[in-house]
């Protein structure tokens, strides 16, 4: 990564977000009132390798102590995921739809979703099921932390896309956001992406499950998640924003994801 760049004139930042799409092909240093040197994208913080190592260890410990610290899980993912992000990015490049995503940089935010038209979609379509999932589990796509410590702008986008696709993955896999559902999704993600943070989460998550849930995990959910994860097409390469009308079952078949063996409902959310 070149440290010294000839100062580029700020191209109009307004062009960066048109209809919620993040248009940027090359690495431009972004000037902001923050005056932070070497800022490759908004929210970027330059860190030395030593700082990344310290962050990885510190965030790992903090996340283990308090799993509700999502910001620490995010930092752990960013500081340990460099190799996996490169592999993911290459997979996306080799896929035509994925390549379009890398070029157009769509973002999944409440502001970019047309909720009213999505709710009129037929049941069983991706858009309708996604909205139902957000509703039942009382989550919103806007709570994802911004990427801070990835030192390449394209990889930072891949990381951001991974975070934003997480909820859609819940919908695709039919898993709620309770502990068991999260662990199942983590197993899928670990098999798919190979991000160390996912692998760690997948390994340590089961420790917090009750015996009955652990049995469900080990018996059917776990193997299914791993199988689907390794066989499925790269989930980041799917342009969900253009597929809201598509039928969910059809999408699953297209992506090579088996339907879930057990039906888990969001009501069973009483912790592990």
């Amino acid at each position: 990564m070149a440290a010294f760049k000839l100062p580029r004139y700020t191209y109009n930042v307004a062009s960066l977000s048109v209809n919620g799409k993040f248009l940027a092909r090359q690495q431009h240093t972004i000037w902001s009132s923050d005056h932070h040197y070497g800022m490759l994208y908004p929210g970027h913080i330059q860190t030395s390798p030593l700082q990344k190592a310290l962050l990885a260890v510190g965030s790992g410990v903090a996340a283990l102590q308090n799993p509700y610290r999502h910001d620490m899980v995010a930092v752990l993912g960013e500081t340990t995921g460099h190799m996996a992000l490169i592999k993911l990015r290459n997979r996306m490049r080799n896929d035509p739809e994925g390549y379009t995503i890398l070029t157009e940089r769509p973002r999944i935010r409440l502001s970019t979703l047309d909720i009213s038209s999505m709710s009129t979609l037929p049941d069983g379509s991706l858009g309708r099921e996604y909205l139902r999932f957000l509703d039942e589990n009382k989550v919103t796509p806007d709570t994802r932390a911004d990427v801070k410590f990835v030192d390449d702008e394209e990889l930072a986008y891949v990381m951001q896309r991974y975070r934003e696709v997480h909820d859609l993955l819940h919908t695709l896999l039919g898993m709620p956001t309770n502990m068991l559902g999260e662990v199942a999704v983590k197993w899928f993600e670990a098999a798919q992406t190979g991000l160390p943070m996912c692998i760690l989460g997948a390994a340590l998550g089961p420790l917090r499950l009750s015996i009955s849930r652990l049995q469900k995990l080990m018996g059917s959910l776990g193997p299914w998640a791993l199988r689907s994860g390794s066989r499925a097409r790269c989930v980041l390469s799917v342009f969900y924003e253009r597929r809201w009308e598509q039928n969910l079952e059809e999408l699953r078949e297209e992506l090579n994801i088996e339907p879930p063996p057990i039906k888990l409902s969001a009501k069973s959310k009483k912790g592990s």
Partner: protein
Amino acid sequence: MAASFKELPRRIVQIRNRSARFGPRNPLGNSTFRTEVSAYRCCSGAAAGRSTHFGFESVPEGEKAERVYKVFESVAQKYDVMNDAMSLGIHRLWKDSLLRLMNPQPGLKLLDTAGGTGDISFRFLEYTRSVREGQLRHRARANQTPSWQEIAAGYGSEGEEPAESRAVVCDINKEMLKVGKERAETAGITTGLSWVVGDAEELPFNDDQFDVYTIAFGIRNVTHIEQALQEALRVLKPGGRFMCLEFSKVSNPLLSRLYDAYSFQMIPVLGEVIAGDWKSYQYLVESIRRFPDQETFKEMIEEAGFFRVQYVNLTGGVVAIHSGFKL
């Protein structure tokens, strides 16, 4: 927000200087003051009125106070935890040293400026109370067998209470004061303590009010240090003492390099992990580098009108206590 073209020369200077310091794999941060600071000033001074430093950034003067406010608003909840983590608990020893140097006798009135969570005031009250108890014990021992004349003499003065020590914690930031009040409640300190919102450059007190004025780890955040010093002179009684505990310059080159490496590598990481706030702690370590060194600060205090100005280095110069008297 497109950058204005006026700022471009400044940014070019900034980039060239930054890249000279921050190569692709150099550790961030450098302790030496650079003269390009003055280059920024003359470029931006023409464009946007007077500017000052905010860490290594340059900001218009009006903006600095607001940005400092935001920093402390966001760190207030975890302030004490972070202090312990960053200094490995040594900040407690520094504050204890300040009190020992002060050696306050009971009955004094303290103004703890930028007192935030109240560390200095709590220590002050504790110190004077234990001195007071020592005095009472001493007096009781001496009065084991009083003569009848002494007993008679003691009758008149029964209504007279010895003067109580009082501490006023003054801070510009309400969040910090809130945290301080909670701490006082948990510690059970109820009397002798008051909490006032105020700006060190414009204190809400009359002249000649306090016996001791302290400002611990606060003066480097003030936009106009000279003004804060003049206000300190104003509110102190004649004979009153000014004391300042602040980060300063480490003279030993080896220690200085270790300190810099620790500051720039470790502290923002600790800030991110413990408090979830990298930028505030980056500001913290940068603001320490921007503060004048021991001798320069001593001269500033003398210029404000204090006498017998002295300083003591602690931990090899990482921290220094400056003291002066109003006569």
